[in-house]
């Protein structure tokens, strides 16, 4: 579980996060949604420690991430997996090498054990063996995202963060990625936080949704509640897409 308590973050005097408090539960796909520039990415990067927050608390179960030492934080990072918007695979190593990298860096596993783990992770994201030796530039965007997910779960993390994991993908592949993240979340009981502005993702896998607007928490709920939230800002965001307006009968 991850609990945020009154998170504030500013850049050059411009307050981007204004006191956000919420809880992200394990075994669920927790979505952060909002318009571009609403502070979603800053929030996600603050939670995982890529940005230092100005004020507030970030609790990973019973550990306050803002209070622990750099050494403890480094160790804790091994419990975190992250999937970046563009995949962020290391382009100097092949698919297999990308998944093996965290194992090489942080475990004392034998080569055989590492290979087994790599195959296990890549198999879980449906990457065929023939693609193992290809470099990231030789595979499609959807495959890159799946390899990024495989790398993120290589160390068996407790927490998984995904920054717009299906951006730039066709709707079918985007759904595959969404479903894959949800399935992995359930299987490994991870606390998964997904940053998205894709309403299809919300409808598909939005078990818990946090809507933020201009750096403030506007609404929380689930995908079943979202169409009848009664929150004007949320409705404006959702029904900007005509399809959902039709669903609502607007």
């Amino acid at each position, binding site marked *: 579980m991850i609990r945020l308590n009154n998170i504030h973050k500013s850049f050059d005097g411009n307050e981007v996060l204004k006191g956000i408090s919420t809880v992200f539960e394990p075994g669920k796909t927790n979505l952060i949604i909002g318009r571009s520039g609403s502070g979603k990415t800053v929030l996600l990067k603050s939670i995982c420690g890529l940005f230092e927050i100005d004020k507030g608390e970030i609790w990973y179960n019973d550990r306050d991430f803002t209070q622990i030492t750099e050494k403890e934080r480094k160790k*804790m990072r091994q419990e975190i997996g992250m999937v*970046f918007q563009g995949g*962020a695979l290391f382009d100097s190593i092949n698919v297999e090498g990308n998944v093996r990298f965290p194992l090489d*860096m942080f475990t004392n596993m034998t080569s055989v054990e590492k290979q087994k783990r790599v195959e296990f992770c890549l198999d879980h994201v449906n990457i065929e063996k023939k693609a193992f030796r290809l470099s990231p530039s030789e595979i499609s965007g959807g495959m890159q995202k799946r390899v990024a997910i495989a790398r993120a779960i290589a160390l068996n993390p407790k927490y998984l963060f995904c920054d717009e994991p299906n951006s730039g993908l066709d709707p079918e592949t985007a759904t595959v990625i969404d479903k894959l993240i949800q399935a992995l979340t359930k299987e490994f009981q991870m606390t998964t936080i997904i940053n998205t502005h894709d309403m299809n993702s919300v409808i598909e896998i939005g078990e818990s949704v946090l809507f933020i607007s201009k750096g403030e928490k506007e609404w929380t709920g689930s995908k079943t509640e979202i169409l009848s939230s009664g929150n004007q800002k949320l409705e404006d965001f959702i029904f900007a897409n005509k399809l959902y307006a039709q669903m609502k009968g607007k």
Partner: protein
Amino acid sequence: MDFFFHIGRYFTLLKRVFARPEKHKMYVRQLFHEIDTLGVNSVWIVIIISVFIGGIMTIQFAYSMSNPIYPKDLIGFGTRDTLILEFSSTMLALIMAGKIGSNITSEIGSMRVTKQIDSLEIMGVNSASYLILPKIVAVVLIFPFLFIMSVFFGILGGLVTGPLAGVVTVPEFLQGLKFAFVPYYITFSAIKSLVFGFLVASVPAYFGYYVQGGALEVGKASTKAVVNTNILVLFFDLILTRLLLT
């Protein structure tokens, strides 16, 4: 103010670079990769440039010493000392700042803009150390070898070009090479090449590591890195020459 900001940030980065590595084995593997990429791949360009410059220097020395009052031996002597004292250390460092330096900035800069560095940080890897330390060690290790190779091939270039151009005979050139040789010059230039190696790796790495934006900014950072490295190489050349040679 901008200057002091960069100096401060450069040393802060160096502090992170020289932090204790997470796993030595991974760094050693990366070091060999960098020696191959940055060092072995530079051997041909060093040989080609040195052979040509050695030949050109020999012809130019012959031209400026065309007065019969000067013994022909001075051509080999002049070529040798110029190569050892300045070309094979300083000029080579300037050339390598263009080749190796821009390579380092664009590689690290691309990793920054494609979030690969963030990805390392999230995993708990000290990205500054993992990406930059092997490059610095590799370049510092290979620079003295490139220096010696450059001196050798520069002299070879002069030895072949001079007699072919008919400006000096082989015995005269060889006699000049042996004339008034000061072994300390080799030590002096080897020290310079170590310092230049450090600058050629660390300054471009700094510019790459802090790139913000996209491909355009990576290109701009590469240009900045090469210009600044060249200025620093010349500045340190002046300091080291003053300290070690006078």
